[in-house]
């Protein structure tokens, strides 16, 4: 073949993206609501687990609080896109500047306002993550898990009590249903791309090095805080994006949606796939979502409700016992090597 190495490097990912686009178009056009919902769900979880992998898997600083960022992203973006009339009816005590804000600008048929609301919310959440991270990323091991769990609890309490902004524990509803397959998978690809790039760079090496041995990392010039903070903040950004996509998908939600249940589910995907492996996270998300769906059908037939959660928990425990590094460990299925010749991998 006369293709340049660069083209061959790009061929694998391009083929995968084209295949994905084709599949998504078919599902979109077919009008099969079940499959559309399932794939949107999968895409959102993919973003969640890949960004959690960035902060937990790459750096080894095990955060349990990421779903808190998702909640902030969901509420934040929904507040920006909620139509003025709904705001007036449901959230009468909003501060004036928020009450008059409606991100509904379009570019032709393209809802630019949704994109802007998602990015604004994610940036604000990243700043929150930066502040939280400056304090919590100094910890490690069990301490950081407990402290970030504390963050999750605090977010929930704040959401429930910030009545004026969130309707408290009541349902926040009438969010515009912008999210579709295209939005979710475009964001999922951006997340995958960014995390993949970071892994194969100086930043990724610094993260993995300080995960493996903090002293050794410092002895070769790697400061501990910068890579940890970078992972935490970028992870929070995409987690907030997933929150925004989720909010504009199910259109009504309450603080309960973003709590232990979801946290546990995302962590299961991460651990099943492998801490540190981006492709592992994709596999983990596909497996857990697929399995949960299949088990839910069994529940419907056998009327053994709760069975799916029990089985997922058992699988989680088995993986922890028998294959602690998960299915892929930190190895990758490298799409960019798919069409390359032997000696070109450098």
């Amino acid at each position, binding site marked *: 073949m006369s293709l340049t190495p660069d083209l061959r490097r790009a061929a694998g990912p391009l083929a995968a993206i084209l295949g994905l686009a084709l599949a998504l178009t078919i599902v979109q056009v077919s009008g099969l609501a079940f499959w559309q919902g399932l794939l949107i769900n999968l895409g959102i979880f993919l973003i969640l687990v890949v960004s959690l992998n960035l902060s937990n898997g790459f750096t080894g600083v095990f955060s349990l609080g990421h779903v808190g960022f998702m909640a902030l992203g969901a509420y934040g973006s929904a507040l920006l896109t909620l139509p003025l009339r709904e705001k007036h009816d449901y959230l009468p005590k909003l501060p004036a500047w928020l009450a008059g804000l409606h991100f509904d600008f379009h570019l032709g048929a393209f809802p630019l306002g949704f994109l802007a609301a998602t990015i604004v919310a994610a940036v604000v959440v990243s700043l929150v993550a930066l502040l939280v991270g400056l304090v919590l990323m100094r910890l490690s091991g069990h301490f950081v898990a407990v402290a970030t769990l504390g963050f999750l609890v605090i977010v929930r309490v704040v959401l429930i009590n910030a009545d004026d902004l969130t309707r408290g524990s009541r349902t926040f509803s009438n969010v515009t249903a912008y999210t579709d397959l295209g939005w979710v998978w475009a964001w999922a690809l951006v997340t995958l791309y*960014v995390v993949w*790039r*970071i892994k194969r*760079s*100086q*930043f990724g*090496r*610094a993260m*993995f*090095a300080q995960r*493996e*041995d903090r*002293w*050794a*990392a*410092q*002895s*070769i*010039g*790697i*400061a*501990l805080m910068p890579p940890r903070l*970078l992972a935490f903040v970028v992870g929070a950004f995409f987690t907030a994006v997933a929150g925004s996509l989720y909010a504009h998908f199910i259109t009504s939600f309450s603080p309960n949606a973003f709590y232990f249940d979801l946290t546990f589910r995302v962590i299961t995907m991460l651990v099943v796939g492998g801490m540190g492996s981006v492709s592992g996270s994709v596999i983990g998300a596909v497996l857990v979502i697929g399995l949960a769906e299949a088990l839910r059908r069994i529940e419907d037939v056998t009327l053994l409700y709760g069975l799916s959660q029990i089985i997922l928990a058992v699988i989680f425990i088995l993986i922890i016992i028998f294959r602690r*590094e998960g299915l892929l*460990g*930190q190895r990758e299925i490298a799409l960019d090597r798919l069409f390359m010749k032997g000696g070109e991998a*450098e």
Partner: protein
Amino acid sequence: MTNAPANLGEPILQARGLAKSFLGLQALQDFSASVRPGEILGIIGPNGAGKTTCFNLLTGFLAPTAGTIEFKGQDITGVPPDRIARIGIARTFQNIRVFGSLSVAENIEAAAQMRHHTSLWETLIGGPGFRRSEAEVRARAREYLAFFDLTPYAERPAASLPYGFQRRVEIARAMATRPSLLLLDEPAAGMNPAESDDLHQHILDLRTRFGLTILLVEHDMRLVMNLCERIIVLNYGEIIAQGKPEEVRADPQVIAAYLGEDHSAGGASAAPTGETGA
């Protein structure tokens, strides 16, 4: 003795009155030493004499209770370890600390990247700056892999290698930061005489090839006595002797420290092994 010190100019490293105490335990006191460029200086002493504490102070992993450290005329007292590495002091650890689940190549690359910085933006778009610096880091890592005969193991997880190889990975990793001063904490631990001879030759090669200054903590007396031009002996956190190997070996205080007071007169049998507790 091998080559004489290459250069008798200004000291590259100067410690003055260094002290460290842990909850009242004086681990090191009044440690003063100056290291000349190109020198190989040994630090020996029984277990618990303060050798590793001394290394940890010099590399910023511990902050001294008193005293100052100067490196190339610059005060580096209390500077954090990652910055110490950046200004040219590299080290290995007594208990091997490789990045176990990373490949040998990745271990070296993580160190080789210290002197190549790419911005996050450049990294994300995969621009020419990113590509160039990645290619340089990899090329440099390959160089060090080859120099340390680690090329055949480049893709293996570091933790899967035998002990002696992991030590070599650690030294290669330290060298990949391109230091001017290298601190080796018991590099010969667990090695047989043949391997330790190998190490001896390797350390000399390193000095010649990279113009390196070396500080060595070691229990293998044969290695220390043959390799070092100068030796400092610590006991209970204090310097009890220093000088050329033959001077140190003959010093009654050193013999006493290693063999115990009672044997100081007659104990000619054993060479100091450092196995006596402290």
